[in-house]
């Protein structure tokens, strides 16, 4: 195992990418995630593993380079922050439609528009409810620490290839810029073209003696055929929903009230839970790790034993809709959020719990 190091979330993404056998990174700088590209350039992985690192001319170009690389069965990725991710939505829809694996990291900043460079979670809707056009889903992981930035990146590649689907790592400026301890994964070799042909027979790496070429496309003009494509996608999404839900709980078992929060908000909420518990108020924290598939059944189970839930987000109220769907009216679900790059303090959340839940 590697020694424990101290690094930023963005640096951990870059280090982990090289280590989990990534073939290519294509990206364009934007605060607060520029260190991903900077670190990759500084590490020069092309000398060590042969990984390609390329600064594209735009985010639109980056995602389409990813599309091309993914079509060849390569482990490819990009990263950006909110405005850049918006530019990638068309490409993401195409990649999902063409059923290709890739990883996209969003180090979210406050919007709308160019907004601010400070942390935010206001891209939740964009990530889990579409973003691009058509009935597609992005498997979405929400890291809450620098260690998870590294862990989730490797997991993202595994899930992307398991389901031939794009995977989003939805972090934010707080996790991206913060330095913490991290233990990086061991080096895993990149696959050779022969190994890719064997593992992924759909990859467009040349006919190589086969009679028919592979075609990767999201276009199907015959509606009957396109419906079949959609059926296949939906079937895949049901499988993802059945198998890939991930979440974490903190002091939930005896809780009267539950905070629900993801990513950096969950970190802050954990402190709020500690403060509330010191006052003798039994509060727990439920942290969805996968935002799609969402832990619907698990939240519903907790709704049977608590008096109310508070969704805490760095946005104007997005995930709270999914919490309400999961709770399905069993108990009140309230919301507390800060936005525009503002970060709630643990004390503010304590106050919100008292005002909104305990009346």
């Amino acid at each position: 195992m590697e020694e424990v190091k101290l690094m930023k979330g963005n640096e951990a993404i870059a280090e982990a990418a090289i280590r989990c056998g990534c073939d290519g990174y294509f990206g364009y700088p934007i605060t607060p995630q520029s260190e991903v590209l900077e670190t990759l350039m500084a590490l020069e992985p092309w000398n060590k593993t042969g990984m390609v690192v390329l600064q594209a001319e735009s985010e639109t170009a980056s995602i389409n380079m990813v599309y091309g690389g993914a079509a060849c069965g390569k482990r490819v990725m990009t990263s950006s922050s909110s405005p850049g991710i918006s530019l990638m939505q068309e490409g993401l829809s195409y990649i999902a439609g063409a059923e290709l694996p890739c990883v996209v990291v969003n180090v979210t900043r406050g919007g709308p528009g160019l907004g601010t460079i400070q942390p935010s979670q206001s891209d939740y809707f964009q990530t889990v409810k579409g973003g691009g056009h058509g009935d597609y889903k992005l498997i979405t992981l929400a890291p809450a620490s620098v260690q998870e930035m590294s862990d989730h990146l490797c997991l993202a590649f595994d899930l992307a290839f398991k389901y031939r689907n794009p995977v989003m790592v939805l972090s934010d400026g707080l996790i991206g810029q913060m330095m913490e301890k991290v233990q990086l994964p061991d080096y895993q070799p990149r696959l050779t073209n022969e190994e890719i042909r064997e593992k992924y027979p759909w990859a467009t790496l040349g006919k190589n003696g086969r009679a028919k070429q592979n075609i990767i496309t999201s276009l199907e003009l015959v509606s009957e055929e396109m419906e079949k494509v959609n059926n296949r996608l939906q079937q895949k999404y049901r499988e993802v929903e059945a198998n890939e839900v991930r979440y974490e709980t903190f002091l939930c078992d005896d809780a009267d009230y539950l905070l629900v929060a993801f990513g950096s908000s969950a970190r802050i909420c954990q402190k709020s839970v500690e403060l509330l518990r010191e006052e003798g108020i039994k509060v727990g924290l439920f942290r969805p790790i996968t935002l799609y598939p969402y832990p619907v059944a698990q939240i519903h189970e907790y709704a049977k034993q608590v008096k109310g839930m508070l969704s805490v987000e760095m946005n104007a109220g997005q995930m709270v809709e999914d919490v309400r769907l999961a709770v399905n009216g069993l108990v009140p679900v309230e919301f507390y959020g800060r936005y525009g790059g503002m970060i709630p303090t643990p004390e503010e959340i304590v106050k919100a719990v008292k005002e909104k839940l305990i009346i």
Partner: protein
Amino acid sequence: MKRVPMFGTSSIRPLKINYSRMKEEIIIAGFGGQGVLSMGKILAYSGLMQGKEVSWMPSYGPEQRGGTANVTVILSDEKISSPILQEYDTAIILNQPSLDKFEPRIKKGGTLLYDGHGFVREPQRTDINIYRIDALETSIALNMAKTFNMFILGGLLKIRPIVEIDNVLLGLKKSLPERHHHLLAQNETALRKGMEILIPIHVL
């Protein structure tokens, strides 16, 4: 509560720290270029060397681009929850705007360490420990202006010995790029000098 007159630093005793379940929440704030972020980084690395849980959360926004910069550093024996804080155990303050912003946010009984240069308003709190360190003046007089922030760190460790000097030196080595390793000795000198020039202003 008593105002403590200036006296030689040899009699300055470290403030009480509960070592059994240690957690120190620190804010370091000043102008960009004073070494605020790197001081935090060295402190975080020192904590890492001492086997602590650590977090280092910088301001990376407009304030860093030509204005005040700050960094929150937490060292703890337990897993750190929120890296963002409303109140701090210890504040290291290097300019007036940062004093205005963070003085009210020091926990009761906490510690404020500030560089004496360029303040129009001195700290006002009477429920915290206040120490001044004339690091800018001293570092310039000794022709060591580049190690200004290490004087400050030395001062901090004199009153809050949260990490051992040996681990700070190891942390320094880890956080400095190799091309600067010939400056390690000078940094150590600054660190030790900083311990000597601390001035207690108000001690509980």
